[in-house]
């Protein structure tokens, strides 16, 4: 039973988070920061594209370094 629960959890982790947890964590943090910024007078739309421009190269660098 424990093995099945573990396999079920592993399937959903793989389905949602995928190969690099850093991307999922980065997206969640970026969205939280966007929400906080949107509560102020400063425009918040630029934060997510900026996060993307950082997250993708960093994730690629990690992948090439460990030979994914």
């Amino acid at each position, binding site marked *: 039973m424990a093995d099945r629960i573990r396999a079920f959890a592993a399937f959903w982790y793989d*389905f*949602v*988070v*995928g*190969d*690099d947890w850093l*991307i*999922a964590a980065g*997206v*969640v943090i970026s*969205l*939280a920061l*966007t*929400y906080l*910024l*949107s*509560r102020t007078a400063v*425009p*918040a*739309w630029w*934060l*997510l*594209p900026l996060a*993307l*421009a950082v*997250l*993708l*190269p960093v*994730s*690629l660098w990690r*992948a*090439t370094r460990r030979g*994914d």
Partner: protein
Amino acid sequence: MGSGALFIAVFLACVVEAVEATTIVLAAGTARDWRSATTGMAGALAVLAVIVAALGPAVSDVPLHGLRLVVGALLLVFGLQWLRKAILRASGHKARHDEGKIFAEQLAAAAGQPRRRAGLVPDWYGFTLSFKGVLLEGLEVVFIVLTFGSNARNVGLAAIAAGAAVILVAAAGLAIRTPLQRVPENTMKFVVGIMLTAFGTFWGAEGAGAHWPGSDAALLVLIPAIAVFALALVGLLRGNRQAVLAGRS
């Protein structure tokens, strides 16, 4: 989001998933038993239809703001993972997706298993191989249909696009009974990765309370900008790889 853009995004994403599922069904049918493989495929499609019917109306009832935040986050994570893999493949850092090779591996694995009848299914292994393959690939199709469809408030059109893609690919696969190697799968995955990332960025930011300059027109800048950025990363990684290989020789 226009109906055309919704249709194209869902159709392309679903073609890619359908090609992968078709390869598994073809391997199960060729190596084992066609009746068991098609029964497994039909069973999985029935389960997926129930999931869409159950979740579709429920997702459509969620307030748009909250929906866009959650869906945007999921699409962005999905899109970045697709794009990451596509960039690694295009730059030579990861083996390209090869349906012919996958088909041969599935055939070899399936051929070695003992045959066992279960009820109306002549070959249980062929049935489960086909069922699991279609269900797992199909879950991604369901996810794409529900996320794109609910955000555009048009789950029906998204479902039609997905259905058209699945029927087209399945019909082509079953007609020629060989894996669909001519489908430019790697290129399509690159394009789908760009679209998922762009829509995820757009909806995620809106859901978090940001307002895009130019509203929906911002997508017309986001999509090409992400495409150019991804292609630049491919060029950069390819150059690095060539430099490393040249250094070794």
